[in-house]
């Protein structure tokens, strides 16, 4: 039944995780030489399915055929032998090693590392598929786009005929995305097959020949891309109509709550990461900070919250200078933060109640003198759980047992319950499904309405465009410009994200 035109056939694939059915009898058929999009929300099971194809997970049931042959894939090694390569969303690169060392990793032919030959082959491949990158550079010196090229080179170096790309555009600038798509088309011309995991509808229509939609671990449909449209795909993906636009009521903005003046800070590698950032966030406004990942977002948020030393410049919260104060002082003077790495905001093994008081445990009535008042703590936790509709069996449940959406709800509950003057939200919806995203967005708009200042730092341009009154674009640790959050500024924002445009300061919004 399997013919050679089918690059990959997966039948009845089942994968269970504790408490979750990640793949529930999935059938997938990918044709040779096509770009096949795998579309679905976060948690739909796309990545799990591809991890099974790549041998990282083992299916509980189901079978796989590769190039018409029945295949048992026990490890990535097996997958590589079958000509399958995978570029994970989080790059699997050794930061301290050179590009060449990364590319040849795991290639066991002979003992001696023939660096020159390897470098030569990498250069040839790079030229053929226009994947420019310096083979001698160390990975940590490379941009996200370059790192992705290294990942693709790794697969090509091993002669991969089938390439899986997991959310490949999430870290790229618009122009880098264009280049990637060109490379992919080039590869299909050479006979490669590409499986493209995404949750972005425009990418599906822009790049793929066919698309398979997954929802809650099941295949909903497989369609020819040319014979469908974004609206239909959205409906299939979510199972209902999606709210593409949220109503943003006009709010009268007040005084500046956060003022940042010529802020400088270093990265973990002691290189300049923030090079003179200046901006203001006013009461009743959402200021979005757009930018491709790794341009100083993390350092910026850490410098604001006091977790990273500032090497120059000033930070003012309301009217007091807080540039060099301890995190605790900033929290107590009205700064709240939803960090992008949720792990830093929670203690997974501790109960929801104990997590809810992480920011307020020092204050009466939650603590009295040196003692914690457990009664008040419990009442406080119960109130927040109810108010923000956190779904949990009880307040004693360890946070690690909650779903991603509920964890984020609990986090927002905690951060908003203190009535902060300033809320810093970093990638607040990454990894959340459409429903949870909507809840978070509504909560942020609600803060704006209540006259709080919101600083939204996000790599998701859609999110920034949807929510922000003004948008500052961060590129290599500098603000390239600040514009109003209107659709017709999109092109300018894209150019600034790529570092191709810098607005003179007097033109900033």
């Amino acid at each position, binding site marked *: 039944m399997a013919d050679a035109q089918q690059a990959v056939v997966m039948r009845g694939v089942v994968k269970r995780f*504790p*408490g979750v059915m990640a793949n529930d009898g999935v059938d997938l058929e990918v044709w040779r030489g096509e770009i096949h999009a795998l579309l679905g929300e976060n948690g739909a099971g796309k990545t799990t399915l591809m991890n099974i194809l790549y041998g990282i997970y083992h299916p509980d049931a189901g079978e796989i055929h590769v190039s018409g042959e029945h295949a048992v894939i026990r490890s990535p090694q097996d997958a590589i032998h079958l000509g399958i390569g995978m570029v994970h969303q989080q790059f699997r690169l050794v930061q301290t090693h050179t590009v060449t060392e990364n590319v040849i990793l795991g290639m066991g032919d002979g003992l001696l590392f023939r660096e020159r030959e390897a470098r030569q082959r990498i250069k040839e491949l790079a030229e053929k598929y226009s994947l420019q990158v310096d083979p001698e550079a160390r990975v940590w010196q490379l941009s996200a786009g370059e790192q992705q090229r290294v990942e693709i080179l790794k697969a090509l170096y091993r002669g991969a005929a089938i390439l899986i790309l997991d959310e490949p555009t999430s870290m790229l600038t618009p122009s880098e995305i264009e280049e990637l798509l060109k490379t992919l088309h080039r590869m299909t011309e050479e006979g490669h097959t590409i499986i493209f995991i995404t949750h972005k509808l425009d990418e599906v229509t822009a790049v793929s020949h066919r698309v398979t939609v997954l929802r809650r671990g099941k295949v909903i449909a497989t369609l020819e891309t040319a014979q469908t449209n974004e609206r239909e795909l959205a409906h299939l993906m979510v199972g209902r109509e999606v709210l593409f636009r949220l109503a943003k009521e006009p709010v009268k903005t007040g005084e500046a709550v956060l003022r940042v003046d010529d802020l400088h800070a270093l990265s973990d590698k002691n290189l300049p990461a923030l090079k003179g950032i200046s901006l203001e966030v006013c009461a009743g406004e959402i200021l979005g900070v757009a930018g491709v990942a790794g341009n100083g977002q993390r350092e910026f948020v850490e410098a604001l*919250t*006091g*977790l990273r030393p500032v090497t120059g410049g000033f930070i003012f919260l309301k009217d007091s200078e807080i540039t060099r104060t*301890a*995190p*605790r*002082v*900033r*929290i*107590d003077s009205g700064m709240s*933060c939803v*960090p992008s*790495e949720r*792990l*830093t*905001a*929670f*203690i*997974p*093994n*501790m109960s929801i109640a*104990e997590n809810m*008081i*992480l*920011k307020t*445990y*020092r204050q009466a009535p939650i*603590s009295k003198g*040196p*003692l*914690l008042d*457990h009664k008040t703590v419990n009442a406080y936790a119960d109130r927040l759980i109810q108010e923000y509709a956190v779904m949990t069996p009880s307040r004693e449940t*360890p946070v*690690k*047992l909650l779903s991603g959406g509920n964890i984020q709800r609990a986090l927002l509950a905690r951060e908003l319950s203190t009535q902060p003057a300033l809320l810093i939200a970093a990638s607040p919806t990454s990894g959340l499904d459409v429903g949870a995203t909507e809840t978070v967005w509504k909560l942020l708009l609600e803060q704006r309405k209540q006259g709080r200042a919101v600083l939204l730092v996000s790599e998701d341009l859609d999110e920034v465009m949807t929510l922000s009154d003004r948008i500052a674009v961060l590129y290599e640790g500098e603000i390239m410009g600040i514009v109003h959050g209107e659709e017709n500024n999109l092109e300018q924002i894209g150019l600034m994200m790529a570092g191709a445009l810098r607005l003179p300061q007097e033109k900033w919004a």
Partner: protein
Amino acid sequence: MKMLRLGLEPRRHAPRYVQVLGLAFSLFLALLAIAIVFLALGVNPVYAYQRIFQGGFGSLYGLAESATKSIPLMLAGVGLALAFRARVYNIGAEGQLLMGAIVGGGIALNFSELPRAWLLPAMFVGGFLGGALWALIPAILKARFRVDEVLTTLMLVYVASDFVRYLVNGPWRGPEQRGFPYSSPFSLNAQLPHLGVTRIHYPTLIIAILVAILLFLLLVRTKLGYEIRVAGENPAAARYAGMNTQKIVLLVLLISGGLAGLAGVGEVAGIHARLSPPEGISPGYGFTAIIVAWLARLNPLAAILTSFLISGLLVGGDAIQVALNLPSATIHIFNGVILLFVIAGDLFTRYRIRLEARS
């Protein structure tokens, strides 16, 4: 053909009874493994265990000795439980214990004429400070300069041992000891009272139990305890919440060092009544206390129980050392194997284990 296979299924949360059963089972496996070691070394394990059990728990005398030896284990163990909770790996309780013994002993030797009601408390306070200051060195190195505490606390054990040796061989050697490396005996005022005919120096035991209860309350009832638990579980979250993690590191090291110091005072004032070379003051209580803490799952209250359990093994171990003519290092076998199985026993809390039939 059907085959039985051991299956591991990860579990996200283990109820308490699973944790307790898992611990008990690992302890059982540890004793089994030690039996194998004994067998390999040509010792009849059934006989050995009989002697151990009889020695440690089988008589009033044995029980009293077990209680005596549980005192230093409990004091040092609850301190370590607190430090490990904050994920501060103080491995050097042995050295802190010795420094406590030195300071306490120094006070005993130099102020021997003070009345008991002054002298003994002064020795305890001095011992606590001695142990705490000894722990302050790695504490500052870690909090201020990010030097890993595992090695520094451990290195200071060797330094403290050599320091004790230096003192009892040199400046503090008793003139009446005819060249043997001992200090002069403590005055009666510097000696702790015993319970009846036993060697249980009950003032120290009472202090130890009180401390265990206090530390338990500290962990669950106070802001500081909350901070310690958060810092141990997730240091990044602690910093994000505005906690002073350096202060926590300093504090838990000082407390655990001080408590080990108290244990040292208890040993010299309650048992030996003089200073002797380090092996004479402590047969490695500071290291065994690590097991006490781990076996108690870092819960200070449970450490009261586990210190007694482990000290029973120690006493029983002494009995077979004499009976079978084994070197004193034998006890390390117990320590090592039990510790290994206890940490491996976490398997039970992380996985559901079941037999599956596979065709």
